[in-house]
């Protein structure tokens, strides 16, 4: 489960300060899918970064699976991510020098898993890329790259998946296919999903939505 309490992010802006997030309170239950929507600059990505421990808040706490994220140091948060978290990004973030298979193997290799290749092959087959294992990202279409990214996110069987605008770089049809796959995988594995999107259609497929405006939750956590 993901729990945020009194979460704020303020950054210096010249001589003044800029409030990006203010006093965010939310709780996402295990297996729940929550969408974060809002206009550009509303703080969606900052919230995702804080919830995943990629960034540090000005105030407030985040608990992932009961662990206080900011009581840990940077490496402690990385270790927690390794254990609990998967990511999908708008710009795919595949490693260019690595093939599709190697990209999916990477998180398993970083965890020193011996069955990395086997599991990565199976995962790529699951996302429909069993025939494209040896292809480099630059030789894959946008939709295919995002499927590799999904395979990389799910191959470690994370309890929580953070997705940042996963269809933002894709056309509508391809994007819809990716969202179908994301929700299918989520359902299969019972993963908790935090999905940042500006696409209302996509957001509506989640169990809950929060809307950010001016750094606050505008609609309250439903």
């Amino acid at each position, binding site marked *: 489960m993901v729990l945020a309490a009194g979460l704020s992010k303020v950054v210096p802006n010249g001589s003044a300060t800029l409030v990006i997030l203010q006093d965010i309170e939310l709780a996402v239950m295990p297996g729940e899918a929550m969408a974060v929507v809002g206009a550009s600059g509303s703080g969606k990505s900052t919230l995702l970064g804080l919830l995943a421990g990629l960034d540090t808040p000005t105030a407030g706490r985040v608990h992932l699976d009961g662990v206080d994220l900011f009581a840990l140091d940077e490496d402690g948060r990385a270790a927690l991510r390794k254990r609990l978290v998967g990511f999908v990004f708008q710009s795919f*973030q595949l490693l260019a*020098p690595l093939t599709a298979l190697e990209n999916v193997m990477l998180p398993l290799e*970083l965890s020193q898993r011996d069955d990395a290749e086997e599991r990565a092959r199976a995962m790529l087959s699951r996302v429909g890329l069993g025939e494209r294992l040896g292809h480099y990202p630059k030789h894959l279409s946008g939709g295919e790259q995002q499927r590799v990214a999904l395979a990389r996110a799910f191959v470690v069987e994370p309890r929580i998946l953070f997705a940042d605008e996963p269809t933002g770089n894709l056309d509508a049809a391809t994007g819809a296919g990716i969202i179908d796959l994301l929700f299918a995988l989520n359902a299969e594995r019972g993963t908790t999903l935090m999905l940042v999107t500006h696409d209302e259609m996509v957001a509506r497929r989640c169990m809950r939505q929060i809307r950010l405006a001016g750094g606050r939750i505008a609609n309250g956590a439903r």
Partner: protein
Amino acid sequence: MAHIRLALRMLARDWRAGELKLLALALIVAVTSVASVTFFADRVRQALTRDAHQLLGADLLLTADHPLDPGFAREAQARGLSTAASVRLISMSRQAGAAHIAGVKAVTEGYPLRGKLRIAPALNVPDQEAAGVPPPGQVWVDERLANAIGAEVGTSLELGNARLQVAAILTLEPDRGVTFFNIAPRLLMNVADLPQTGLIQVGSRVTYALLVAGDRAAMEAYERWAKTRLDRGEGVEGLDNARPEIRAGLDRAQQFLGLTALLAVILAAVAVGLATRRFTRRHLNNYAVMRCLGASQRQLFGLFAWEFVALGAIAAVLGCALGFGVQLVLAQGLTEFVGVPLPQPSWLPAAQGMLLVFALLLGFALPPLMRLKRVPALRVLRRELGGPEESQVVSYGAAIAVLAGLILWQAGSFKLGAYVLAGFTGAGLAFAAVSYGALRLAASAGSLGGVAWRYGLANLRRRARQSTVQILALALGLTAILLLTVTRGDLLETWRARTPAGAPNRFILNIQPDQRAPLAAFFREHGLPPMADYPMVRGRLMAINAVEVSAENYSEARTRRLVEREFNLSYMDELPAHNRVSAGRWFSPSDRESGAVSVEEGIARTLGIQLGDRLTWMVGGQQFTAPVTNLRHLDWDSMRVNFFVIATPPLLERAPTSYITSFHLSGPQGAVMNQLTQAFPNLTVVDMSVVLRQALAMMDRVVEAVQLVFLFALAAGLLVLYAALLATEDERVREAALMRALGASRKQVAAAQCVEFIAIGLAAGALSAAGASGIGALIADRVLQLDYTVNPWLWLLGPALGGACVAVNALAGARAALSQPPIAALRETE
């Protein structure tokens, strides 16, 4: 172990994707160039040392004025070293009433241990290598003795009480040069015949020598052993005691080789630094993604560090192997040229190559890698977080420290290393300042001109820091290239010119005062250059500042011998043209009245004589004391008449004086010498052509070697240029794609890039011309003691070369940027 396995897998993946090729190439070229230079320099050094040993005829010479204890020879043989012996004395040789003084050398089988004797079956016929030494009952005489007493091959001559047959004409004696002056014509005989000549009597001046040669380590051990057992009148002559002019040549050759090796080091280091920066920049994102996936900083740093260590090890092995191969080719070329095989290299250069790789990685790759360590994971969400800038102090500090260490190590001489380091550091700082200033200037010029011009200059301004780094790297690379080509050529030419082809090759000694005018007339009549003769007086140094000079006061054998012997003094009012006063001032009119002496700076150092010291001399039974008013620097390479000590004329004018002269005699004038010895039978003519031939041949070999080695370092320089220009390629391709996407024509894109590149090329080229001139002048003046004039062509060549290098890259870059649809370029460089 799991980390190392993953690091190796990452290495293979990065290699396959082409991410490491530039870095690997830089490392391999670095090691290859340095290894080939050091392997080759190692062999050349060994060859030079070995050839210098030929001038002794051995690796070590033990000399004595009495028969040496046979224990010296026994010990050498017991240590597995080769030995031979010689006995030298001066005697008259006679044939059919003609008598002439002869420098007799009686030798044992095996002489000489280093180098070869050459003999001819008759006068003026081709010679060949001699197999062994004259057998008992026979002698070999040199051309001068054969001419002087008409001792043709097949006739016999008298030496003391013995009658010996002339069996050959001796044309080359490798160790003849050791005794520079007072060379009487040579008579070489077997030591077995010596007793029957009856020449060795009480009071005879005889020099006994034991020649020793063998493995270097064993020789060093033997030399240490022998030195502790030397008795009075015994001495050791090693390479360091060999003739100063040869020693000077060797030193200078080694400095040139050291210089080449260290230029390769600098170039390699710059290339490695640039390649690693590129690698790091391209991996910022990957690093952030892996942080996101849960890898710790330590794990990731370890991963990249192991990847680099593995790459370094592979590059080191490959580079050393390639370096070994390259030096084989170099050595092959040199062997064909000189006809003498070079000694095998030692394995030390391979170890040095390995060390070099890790030193380069430590100094030039580690700081950019440390930058990776601080890349925030948040970069995956916010691309603008490019990772903190590397600490300038850490990054440049580490690089400079490693570079300084490498330079000092490679230079082999602290002085040379320090000068080059100071030169490059000074040039680097000056280049950075000037580049920055030029970029500011470009900013103000940016508002003028067309779109391409404005955009090109805007690029320079926007990338001020990268542009400065790029200009700096290019300028340093070009500086090295200019130093390697133009400046090196000029320096070598200046060096070579110090022993010109028309250098004197004959010395005439014992010219009596009343023979000066007829001899000068003889020179004129026979078309020889005007005779320049110098008075020569023999004298002994008795005291320095009233302290008696005694051999016991000096530990060096050579110094002891020097003070035991008589000096050849001269006197004159004018400083000889090829001498230079290095301390004090040349004789003034008042010095002339009160009496003063001038001493050669090297011998002054050896004997501990300072400017102002009062020296007491014994000349012709009379003593005089005079102050040292100046020290002189002699040009030993000039082969002209040189004196260690020169006095003001009134001090020596009345002493028994003979004159000495030197002149150049070309091959076709050979017959003149016979006429000269017939007309002036008392004169001793020393034929320096053989000695000179040896010295010139050796110098040519050194020059060849240095040139070959320089050629290779040049290749390393070109790689640096490539790496420097590749450093911003990604960005350029992306920008070009962006401009194209916004509707710029191909021509506009190419023109904008050209403006930027040409500005960088010209700036770097001009800076490099300044750098090469400055460093060249500094090295010439402070290290090599050459009078060097800066080549004005540098100012044209530098910018032209810089422009040409970047133009090629601009074309390649523009092609890369324009050859694919903008979207593909944008996606690829994202």
